Each structure stands twice: as structure tokens, then as C-alpha cells.
């Protein structure tokens, strides 16, 4: 099974999604992930960095230098090619699920009426 074919955990998906719009440091990823999930999924520092550690190990993200005027204590992260593929595969999977769920809802509506 290729890496991009594997299901992503919700935290990993949100981190990759947050990084799709550009390089970010940890706290910015946390905030973006919260916004993307409409505040329904809160990633704390431990979940964030445990997942970042896994994503770095699987080469889905990599560390990059931050802006020159930024806080030197913060590390910035960027999506790699493998990370983009994994995110794209997950989005395609979600879209397919959404289409199927709509069809099922229609059928349920017909059945109940």
C-alpha cells in the first residue's frame, strides 16, 4: 500500500490541511486547524507535536527556516510532495464518501415519504 493510500488520522489530516496554505509554526497550525474544523476539533500541543513527529518521520512534512524577522525559537513546517499526495488522496476519499452519503440520504428521504 502506498503512503498516500493510507487513511489519515484526524489530527494528521488537519495539520496537512493547515500547511496547504503555506509554511506555519506550531501555534499557527493549531489555530488554523481549529478554524478549519469550525472549532469542533481542538489540537493541543502534545497531540500537535506527536503528530508532527510522525509526519516528519514519514516525510510528509519537513522543517524549513522561518522568516528572518520571526521568533527564532519557533520552527516552521512545510508540506512535502508526499504530504500533498496524502492530503489530496484523503480529500478525494472524503468527496467520494460525501457523494455516497448524499445518495443514501436521498434514498432515506424517498423511503420515509
Amino acid at each position, binding site marked *: 500500500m502506498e503512503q498516500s493510500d493510507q487513511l489519515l488520522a484526524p489530527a494528521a489530516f488537519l495539520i496537512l490541511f493547515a500547511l496547504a496554505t503555506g509554511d506555519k509554526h*506550531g*501555534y499557527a497550525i*493549531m489555530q488554523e486547524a481549529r478554524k478549519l474544523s469550525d472549532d469542533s476539533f481542538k489540537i493541543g*500541543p502534545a497531540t500537535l507535536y506527536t503528530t508532527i513527529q510522525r509526519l516528519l518521520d514519514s516525510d510528509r512534512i519537513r522543517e524549513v527556516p522561518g522568516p528572518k524577522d520571526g521568533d527564532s525559537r519557533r520552527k516552521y513546517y512545510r508540506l512535502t510532495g508526499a504530504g500533498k499526495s496524502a492530503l489530496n488522496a484523503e480529500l478525494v476519499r472524503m468527496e467520494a464518501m460525501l457523494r455516497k452519503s448524499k445518495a443514501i440520504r436521498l434514498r432515506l428521504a424517498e423511503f420515509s415519504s
Partner: protein
Amino acid sequence: MNIVLLRSLWLYERLLLLYPEDLRRDFGGEMILAFADDLEAAWGDARIAGVMQIWWYALREMLTVALPAQRSNPCVLVPALSFVVVAATQSAELCLAVHQAARVDTSWLFDSIRLVVLLPSLANALIAFVVTRVYARCSITALQLD
């Protein structure tokens, strides 16, 4: 940063010891920074209620991230098991004593829990920690000598 946030940060830094060593080594500083940012934002939004919510998430992460990650670490597992076993047996003894006592008042009960259950459990966990730690060091030395 006010005293509430500073104390919270101090405590969080200490609690990071519960996380695996490699995570602390690679990301400990960043975790503290992210927690501090989160605390400041929460204080700005909802004061104490915001800080309490951040602590709720942090404690939940201790249970869902830190403890499962430490399952294979004998220096955490053995003292934790020792604490649970001693606390359970001492609690059973205390229950028996309470059941047979003619009169039980609250202060007596709290003192008994502290002295009969918590103190021996903590002492045993501490001894288990020291022994496991020493044993782990000895076995590493033995491996190196071989």
C-alpha cells in the same frame, strides 16, 4: 504575563516530564511556546474560564497522549502498578476498618485516607521507581561491558 499564566506555564513545564523523552527533547521548547500562546489567547478571551479550558485539554492530553506513550517505559509502568496495587489493598483495609468502626467523622476519614492509603502507595511507587531506575542503569552497563 500575569501570575495565573506564569504559574500555569511553570506547572505545564513540570508536567512535560510525563511525555516520552524523545518528544520532550525534539519539541519540548515548542510545546511550551504553543501552550503559552494558547494560554494568553484564552486569558484574553475568557480570563479564568479560558485558562481552565486550556488546562482541561492539557490534562486530557496527558491521559490520551503521555500515558499511552509511556506504556513501554518500565520507570513509569512499574511505579504506577505498584501505586495502584498498594492503594487498592490499603483502601480495602480502610474500608474494613470504617465498616467496623463505631463512629466515623470526616476529619478522621481524610486523615486515614492520607496516612493509610496515599502515603504508603506513594512510598511504594517511589521505591519501585528508584529500583527500576537503578536496575535499568545496571542492565545498560552490563550490556556495554559484554
